[in-house]
């Protein structure tokens, strides 16, 4: 039997072009998913930043500020063990919201396109093309959403800080801690988004096209 030819592998440029067009036309959906990611990350970053500020009150706040806070009974309250366990809870909840929110949003946006995945496979699309397409899409949405979310979260944290601690809020958070928070948030946001999209996309790509087109989600 003569050799059977194989389909070519599309260059990345082509995949990006198709992904970009899809997101542009589905603008409202892209926007909704991206804002969902942004919202989750804003919450997470906000919690981490304001916790970071409170933790440093004892060391980095000026005498004046410490006295004022002590007078108002705030210092004691902020540094109490009760408050600390509450803070840990908040952080846990923020993480959970980010995880559930992002993964859920990506899962829905991919599963509602199972038929499209099946169709593309019928036309000669490779599994790897489908995975790359959704990788490109989710990387974009993840990066944009996460970046917006982080900016909003940090700004809100400083607004709250200014409100509670005055202009000293800017000194409270050491640069190293801030960078740490930014890196953790960014990685968490992008990784969650990509995984949330790739898992369903990969499982749909692996299906026989008929099964992908038939599955109602």
């Amino acid at each position, binding site marked *: *039997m*003569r050799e*059977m*030819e*194989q*389909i*070519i592998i*599309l260059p990345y440029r*082509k995949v990006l072009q*198709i992904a970009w*067009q*899809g997101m542009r*036309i*589905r603008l409202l959906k892209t926007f909704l998913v991206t804002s969902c990611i942004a919202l989750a990350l804003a919450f997470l970053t906000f919690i981490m930043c304001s916790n970071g500020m409170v933790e440093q009150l004892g060391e980095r706040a000026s005498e004046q500020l410490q006295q004022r806070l002590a007078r108002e009974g705030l210092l004691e309250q902020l540094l109490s063990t009760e408050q600390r366990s509450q803070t840990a809870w908040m952080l846990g909840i923020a993480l959970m919201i980010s995880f559930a929110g992002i993964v859920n949003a990506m899962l829905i946006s991919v599963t509602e396109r199972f*038929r*499209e995945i*099946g*169709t*593309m*496979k*019928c*036309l*000669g*699309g*490779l*599994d790897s*093309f489908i995975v790359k397409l959704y990788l490109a899409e989710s990387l974009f949405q993840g990066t944009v959403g996460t970046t917006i979310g982080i900016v909003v979260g940090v700004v809100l944290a400083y607004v709250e800080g200014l409100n509670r601690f005055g202009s000293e809020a800017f000194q409270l958070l050491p640069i190293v801690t801030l960078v740490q928070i930014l890196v953790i948030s960014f990685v968490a946001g992008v990784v969650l988004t990509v995984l949330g999209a790739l898992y369903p996309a990969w499982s749909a790509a692996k299906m*026989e*096209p*008929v*099964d992908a*087109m038939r599955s109602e989600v």
Partner: protein
Amino acid sequence: MASDHIISARDVKRRYMMGEEVVWALAGVDLDVHRGEYLSIMGPSGSGKSTLFNMIGGLDRPTEGTVIMDGHDVRKMDLRQIAYLRCHKVGFIFQTFNLIQVMTAEQNVMLPMTFAGVSDEEASRRAREILERVGLGKRYDHRPGQLSGGQQQRVAIARSMANDPDIILADEPTGNLDLKTGEEIINMLAMFRDEFGKTIISATHDHKMLAASDRVVYLVDGKITEIKQRHELKIEQGGIADKKAETKLSGRQ
């Protein structure tokens, strides 16, 4: 080995698990499809016609048996070979059109060519040419949402022709269309057989389809019960004879 048969199915079986229960959607089917013929697969729903259709098109793999397409055993192909087959050898048309919603008519037709590695300029030129042929020359820039059902199906036909395949597989292509539009679609498929020598295989329970078919395969409970040639069909077309055939068929369910 240029066989007269573009597709040969031998003892094809397909098993599905419905919970604990084992269901044989195809219980051993033998079928040869000739080059350039218009073959209709008829049968009540649940008869396994869609399953057979999917097997023939390489959209699904048989549990047992072999499907040879153009000299190649579909079961032995790897992923990239199957993708090549779907891209170059077969064009698909679906009951629900299955156009990519975010793409224009032109881009939908271009997609299989993109998968085949054709340059954008060339793909665009060919896409417009084919769209012109199916009567949508002016609507190349419309997206599926802006087209009627019949127009969408014509875009789908244009897409199935994109890489000039030997076989066009149409799964209930008229199922979601009104009588007149359905007839237009059938005529279009017949035209591709006559003018370009394409092999058309269609799963259907639309009796209009019979008029265009060269052969009709009747499938009941996962088995072929009879195969009728065109001249045998003519006798039964229309009127009471057609009704009789219908009751005979449904009586067997």
